[in-house]
Structures are given as C-alpha cells and as structure tokens.
C-alpha cells in the first residue's frame, strides 16, 4: 500500500519529501509553499519543488503537556535546511529527549500521523551521525 501524506500540499511520504515554493523572480524558497513570494512579492502558480532533506536543529523543546490528542512527551524543533535557507517546524526523533541539542544534524523521514487512518504519514526529522555543512 502506498503511504499517504497527512498534508499532501507540503509533504509527500514515499520517499519522504518536503514541498516548498521557489520564486521564479528571486529564486527564494519558502516552506510551507507560498503563492506570493515573501521576498519579492511575485505571485506564482508554479508547482512546488522538493526541499533538501538534511538539516540542523536551530532550537528545540520537549513537550510534556499538550491538549488531548497529542501523546507526550515529544520533541518539537526548528530545523534549518542550509541548502535551501528554509526553516521547518517539525517533530524530532531518533534520540532520547535529554540528548537533543542545538546544532545536531537531522534528516527528513516519515512516521505515522497521530489520530489518522492507518498508512497516513507525517514528516519528522531524525538524528543522523552524518555532518551537515556548512
């Protein structure tokens, strides 16, 4: 069965790919995709482009209490994708919460979305040992 995305407008699950906008005028990328470029104001109906899959943790938090429907604890962080100059808010997995640090390298993956039908996947960034430059 093909994995379905929790939000097909921003993520395709197999292979895990984040979809951003890329401005035809100024080449700036944005996530989630923007119909109006935040850099130069140009409007675009272009298809979204795949974003880089490797990034670094800019900041993070361990969420210990959340409204019903969210299983705690979970790590939420800003992940910077240096190749695209884009920042993504995402779950972070692949290591215990107490070992998460600013600057750690992470890679895009897919995981089952909570409170969704079987086979529905959301994006996640997982810790990697591979260095992401620069």
């Amino acid at each position, binding site marked *: 069965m093909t994995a379905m995305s929790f939000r097909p407008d921003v993520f395709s699950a197999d292979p895990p790919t984040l979809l951003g906008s890329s401005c035809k005028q100024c080449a700036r990328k944005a996530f989630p995709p923007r119909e109006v470029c935040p850099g130069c104001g140009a409007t675009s109906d272009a298809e979204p482009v795949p974003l880089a899959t490797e990034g670094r943790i800019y*900041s*993070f938090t361990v969420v*210990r209490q959340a*409204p019903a429907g969210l299983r705690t604890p979970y790590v*939420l*962080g800003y992940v910077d994708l240096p190749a695209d*100059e884009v*920042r993504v*808010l995402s779950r972070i997995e692949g290591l215990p919460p107490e070992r998460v640090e600013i600057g750690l390298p992470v890679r895009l993956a897919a995981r089952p979305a909570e409170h969704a039908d079987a086979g529905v996947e959301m994006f996640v960034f997982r810790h990697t040992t591979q260095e992401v430059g620069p």
Partner: protein
Amino acid sequence: MRDVHVAGAGMIRFGKYPADVTLEAMGVQAARNAMADSGASPTDLEAVYVGHVFGGPVAGQRISTRLGLAGKPVSNHENYCSSGATALREAWVAIGAGLYDVALVIGVEKMTDRISGGVRPDPNDLDAAVGFIFAAGHALSARRYMADHGATREQIAMVAVKNHAHSTGNQYAQYQTRISLEEVLSARPIAEPLGLLDCSPISDGAAAVIVASTAGLRRLGISHAPRVAGCGLVSGTVQMGLPDVNEEDVSRRAGEEAYRLAGIGPRDIDVVEMHDCFTIAEIVRLEGLGLLPRGRGAALTAAGHTSLGGALPVNPSGGLLSRGHPVGATGAAQVCELFWQLTDRAGARQVDGAKVGLAYCKGGSVSGTDGASVTTIVMTR
C-alpha cells in the same frame, strides 16, 4: 482625528469560575462596573465593541441585550489573545472619526469549561498539525535566547516571580500571592525549559472600559480623563531565510506604529502592561519594542529594572502570569490597569507619577510567520 479618552473602567476578578457563571454574566458584570465607574447609563452608550475568542457567535449581542443595549450597533472582534485590544482599537477609530461620542468596550472569555492542556493554533494550520502549542513556541524562543545571549534559566523565571509579587496588590488578579524562584524552577515541566509557572493560566474573566470623545466626557460630566493617544495593530510577516527567532520584528513594527500615532518614543513610557503569556515572551517583546536593549532583558529583569520601583515597571497588575489570561479579556484588562495607573487609583501597585503607559498584546500564530496579531495601545494622563 479627534481626541479619544477612557472615561471609566471595570473588571471582575479573573480566575476559575463554576460553569453556571456564564460568559454573558461575566461580561455583563464587568460592563456594569465600567458604566458605574464613568457614570454612563445605557442611553449614554452609542455602540458596543466586544472582544472574545471562544464565546461563540454574537456573544457581544447576548451580553448587550442583558445590559439594555439591544438595538445599538454591536460588533464582535476576534484576534486571538489581542481580541480585547482589537475591540478597543475599533472603538478608538470610530470615536476618533466622529461617528460616536461614547462607546462600551468589553473583553470577555470563559475558558475553564472548554479548554484544557493549553491553547494552540487553528487545526487547519500546518504548525498545529505537527504538534505546535503556544507553550512550545515560547520554549523554542527561550532555549535560543539562552544560547545566544548567555541568559540563565533563573533570569527568565524571575519574570514570574516579579509579576506574582506585583499582583499581591491587585484585587482583580487570579493569583494574589508571591511565588519563589525555587517554585518556578521546580514546577512541573510543560515545554522544556518552561514549566507550569512560566505559563499564564487558563482563566475566566471579563474587563470593560467606557471610551469617549471630549464631547462624550462632557455628556458624562467628567472634566478630565486619560487619553488613548494611539492604538497600533500589525500582523506578522512571512519569515524568510534563517533569522533569529527572537528578532521580534513584529513587536518592533507594532511599537513604531504606536509611537508614531502617539507622537512619543520608547523613552517617554513610564509603565508597561505586557503580554507575558509566558515568562520569556515578556523579555523578548520588551526588547522588540525598544524598551530594553537586545539580549539584556533577562539580566535586567533579574536586576529589578522592570519591577515596581525599578526604572521601567512592567506588569504592575501581575500581568497574564498572575492576573490570569482569559484570552479575549486580557487586552481590555490591560487598558483598565493603565486607566487606574494614570488616574492614581492603582493602590499598592501604583507606579508613582506615571504619565504615559503602553499596553501590548500578541494573539495567535500562522505557520511560517512571526505572529498573527499584535496591538500596542499608548495612553497618557
């Protein structure tokens, strides 16, 4: 535009009320208190502006009908935690433009019977879909602030210690007791590094003010009242590239709008009612407004700079952390506090000689932007 004044203020104590104390009952009581304070009768009031988020359709009309104001223009204003301040701004615009001379503004919210575990963006927003709650957003800010500026967890926690100490003088505050630094640091973690006492509570409450032109003041028999010198409103912009999450450009823009409208600068401000929904938020927003130097706000808080008696008292009311945060009521409550400060009626929490006050609210979030709504209200004696 014409001068606009606050002619009277009224609140009910913020806190957790039983289910039978309804949104309508709370709004009615706050409005009656403000009407009594200004001497306004229902026939004096020409329009009603009501801020709320979770009150359901036409909550303002449900409240106004009970106040004997049925038939008058009533509007409902939703800008998440800036809703009450946005309602005030709409009244300021209408009175300034000459449409009305006397209007009632109410901020009201009933949360404890419908919200649990924290507030979050609209479910359709991408951030909500990945598990964003507002406490997490401020935790991300706090973690980065500490890393970038060498600030300590203790310095950030001092915002809560300070604001709880201030609220001991506020009969309308949800909490009116001091808390220790140790209590803040050892509280149950919510979104690390922030714990329970770094977070404003889920509250019920209502606050109201009577807003009037100079002619409206005469009608009410009031010779002098604090002036609403300017109400800024901005929305967040789409963030490009990899900026500092604590840049607070949205606060800078909101501040500049208020300063421009009021014809003042940040140095003219004597007292601030700040949207301290979380401890770190007070610090970075004061910096964004140009009221504290970038990266120094945490250390200055710990040094007493923003305490009553300090160089720039912030949240003499106790702020959201200790007065409570019924989200749609908060902006109106801030205006009540500035009214009492600028009329020397703030009692034990009075900022001596306060002549210019600023109230700041920030409401909501939209994925990829630096906020949804920010209001900045400048009031002068």
